[in-house]
Each structure stands twice: as structure tokens, then as C-alpha cells.
């Protein structure tokens, strides 16, 4: 497969998945968590580099532990997890910065999609399919518990279980996206397309559709910008999503 097509395919799948998951992150007021969560991956990637195994698995393991922590905390206290995010996640970033071997540091922080391989495509395609299938399966319960946890619980919806599954899916997409836009920027690929979609959607079906669409479009725009302007694709993808957000904001402002 031609390198550009390989990059495009991987980035589009990740963009769509991140947009879809991000739509619920934004509604659940977890934007900050989404953004900071990606930083937790850094120590995991660092250990993978030191011990020489696929960084995706290191990142996913670290993220998985982090979402378990968030989940347990939310369950116990019902408090927003902002403080924990603020402390724990930045500490992991600091630890990761010290652990990561210097030559790889820049790539880990901002991603380098040009180094993507056929194996990455396989992992991405399989994970993408799983994410879409599982999310579609839990969508109803997730929506009701986002509207009101009490309402969901009184309807015998397993709120905690659904929340955990959702967070694991988020850690999976973030781990996948690290190759594309790095630990510093991946969180924004989850949040920005959804925030843009929220500006222009009345219904939840359109909102989720636009979030996924904007995620995919950001990836396409970013990869082509990277290719033709010779700039790193990761930051370019985030900039394109930022641009889409501004356009939707203008549309929203016009409507009001």
C-alpha cells in the first residue's frame, strides 16, 4: 500500500472513532479529562521504547490504568475528576518526559504518522470496528445516563458498567491516535470535532454524525497539508479541526 494511502486510512479511521467517542465526552463534560488523558500514555510509551515492544500496547496499558482510576473515583465520590486529572496526569507527563529516550521524545509528544506500518493499520482497523460496534451497542444507556444518572439507574441501566466500557474505548482511541498526533495533541482530536458538531446540531443523531465526520475531515485535511506543505501531519490535523470549529462557531453565531 502506498504510504500516503496508508497514512490516510489510519488517520481517517482514528478521526472518525475519536469524533464519535468525543461526542459523548463533550456531553459528559469530560473535555478536560479527554485532553489530559493522552498525557498519561507517555510513561507507557517510554517503557515500551526502553523494553522494545510496540508503543501502542504500552500506551494502552497506561491509559487503561488511568481510566480505571477515574472510574473508581467517580463511582466513589460522584465528584468531577478535575483535581485528580490536574495532579495525576501532569505528574505522569513529567515522569514520561524523564523516562522517554531523547531521540524519540519529539515524535512521542507530537506524533509522526510517516512512520506508520501495515501492522498499525491492522491494529487500527480491528480496534475501530470494535469501538464502533461496542459504542453502538451501549449508545442508548450511555445517552440516558448522560442526561441523568438517577434516571438511568431507576431504569435498571448498568450505569457504572457502561461508563467503564466507554472510558476503556476512549483509552483505546487515544492509544491508537498517539502515532498520528502524539501525547500532547491527541486529546484535542477527541474533543474539538465534537465541540464543533455541537455548534450546529439540534438532534443527537446529527451531532454524533457531524462529530465523526469532522474527525474524519480533520484527518484528511491534516494529512494532505502535511504532504503538500511538508509540515508534521499531527499538528496539522489539530489545526484543521480548530478551523472547522471556527466555521461552525460562525454558523452558530449567525443563527442566534
Amino acid at each position, binding site marked *: 500500500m502506498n504510504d500516503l494511502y496508508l497514512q490516510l486510512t489510519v488517520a481517517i479511521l482514528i478521526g472518525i472513532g475519536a469524533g464519535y467517542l468525543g461526542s459523548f465526552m463533550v456531553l459528559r463534560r469530560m473535555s478536560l479529562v479527554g485532553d489530559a488523558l493522552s498525557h498519561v500514555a507517555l510513561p507507557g510509551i517510554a517503557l515500551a521504547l526502553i523494553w522494545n515492544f510496540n508503543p501502542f500496547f504500552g500506551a494502552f496499558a497506561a491509559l487503561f490504568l488511568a481510566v480505571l482510576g477515574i472510574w473508581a473515583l467517580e463511582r466513589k465520590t460522584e465528584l468531577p475528576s478535575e483535581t485528580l486529572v490536574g495532579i495525576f496526569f501532569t505528574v505522569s507527563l513529567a515522569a514520561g518526559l524523564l523516562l522517554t529516550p531523547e531521540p524519540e521524545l519529539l515524535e512521542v509528544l507530537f506524533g509522526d504518522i510517516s512512520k506508520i506500518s501495515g501492522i498499525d493499520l491492522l491494529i487500527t482497523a480491528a480496534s475501530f470496528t470494535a469501538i464502533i460496534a461496542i459504542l453502538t451497542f451501549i449508545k442508548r444507556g450511555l445517552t440516558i445516563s448522560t442526561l441523568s444518572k*438517577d434516571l438511568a*439507574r*431507576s431504569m435498571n441501566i448498568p450505569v457504572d458498567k457502561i461508563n467503564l466500557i466507554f472510558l476503556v474505548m476512549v483509552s483505546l482511541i487515544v492509544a491508537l491516535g498517539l502515532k498520528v498526533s502524539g501525547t500532547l495533541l491527541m486529546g484535542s482530536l477527541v474533543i474539538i470535532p465534537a465541540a464543533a458538531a455541537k455548534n450546529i446540531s439540534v438532534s*443527537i*443523531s446529527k451531532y454524533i454524525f457531524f462529530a465523526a465526520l469532522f474527525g474524519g475531515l480533520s484527518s484528511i485535511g491534516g494529512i494532505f497539508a502535511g504532504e503538500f506543505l511538508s509540515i508534521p501531519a499531527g499538528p496539522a490535523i489539530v489545526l484543521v479541526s480548530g478551523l472547522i470549529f471556527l466555521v461552525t462557531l460562525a454558523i452558530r453565531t449567525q443563527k442566534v
Partner: protein
Amino acid sequence: MKTKEIILDVQNLSVSFDDNKIIGDLSFSVKKGEVIAIVGPNGAGKSVLFRALTGLVPHLGKIDWRPGLKINYIPQKFGVEKDFPITVKEFLQLKSKDHGSIMSALSAVGLKAKSSDYDEHHVEHHLLNQRMGWLSGGQLQRVLIAWALLDNPDVLLFDEPTAGIDIGGEETIYNLLKKLNDEISLTVLVISHDLNIVYKYANNVLCLNKEKICFGPPKDVLDRQALIELYGSEAGFYAHKHHN
């Protein structure tokens, strides 16, 4: 009374959070087809009582619902944020995909006339395809009641149905709950802050301030003494009055 069958029996109910007693030693019972109003000052444990009755918080004591009842609960502050992207139709479809059921629930709550093509179109356009967050307070409460009616409940627990509604609208919501109570024998437990409404609509009132202050028909039990005990001081006696 339509029937004397007891469908809820609460004995010595206590709820505590971290050694903080929220409800203590509460006993009362509810018969089928009754409208029960729960009144009390802020922090009296009214919402916690509903959460205990629906099994959402751990408790001591006995809560016996008659087996096989369908109980629906509409929590307090189920305010859908203005920019939460969900339409009324999507919201109702989370519970039932059946168009016919949705339409009949909407007519039960007075959001749709019984049958008319024009009206169907009107409802589709002006209600079902609207964002939940754009509804007025009264419309939102009706939609929530319609949601609750979708799976034909026997009991409805409604926490402050008239919060954020003007006084005229408030009366209409209670009229509606009373109508549903009459027509489909729906048992209604409702938390209210308005004693005038309680006098008018409730068979029994439960005055709660961490423990039971009074329980019985409003005319009999809501006397001056009970109100002073409930709201803490003489001044509190007037706390329910509206000045706007």
C-alpha cells in the same frame, strides 16, 4: 377511595450518608390510586426519600412495594441543558420506538389533540423535532410525564414537577397529574413546595423534616403546629407563599 390495597409500605426507614442522618425512623404507607404529596424545607430529605424508594441509595428499615409494580421516577433538576443536542422525539424514542405509543402518551399529557392530521404534522414540526433544551418549563414537564407514561407505569414518583414554572403553569401540571390519577389509576408520589396545591390535590400529605412530622389528609394534619414544626419557626409558616 377507589381501592384500599396498600402498594407501598415503609417501616422505620433510615438513610445516612457518612454518619449524617438524612432520614430517620420514617414509616408510612401508600394505597393504590392515591396522590401523596411530600412537603418539607430544603434539606429535609425529600429527594433522598425518593432515591431510597427507587433503590438508588442504601437504607435501613423496610421498603415494601407490592410485587410486579412498574414504578417510574422523574428526578429533580432533570433540566436538559439548553445546548444538549437531543430532540423531543429522540428523547422519547430512548424509551419506545413505537410511534403510536409516543403519540398516545403525548395526547395523555395534552401536547397533542386526540386525532387530526393537521395536529400530527404540527406536533412533529413544533414539538418532536425541537431540541429538548428549547422547551418552556411547562412543556418540558409534560414531555417528562409523557416519557414516564410510555411504559404504562403503576406508580409515578415526581420530584418538584413545577420547579421553574410560573404559577398558572404549575396548576396545569397538577391538574394533569390528577387527571392521569383519575383516568388510569396512576398512583402519584410528588414532592411539592406549594401547600395550596397540596391541599387541593393530595389524598395524603407526608411532612418530612429528616423525620416524619405529620402524615394524613392535608386538611386534618397540616395545622399550624405541624407547619411551625416543619419549617422551624413562625416565619416559616409563610415560606410557601409566592410573592412574584
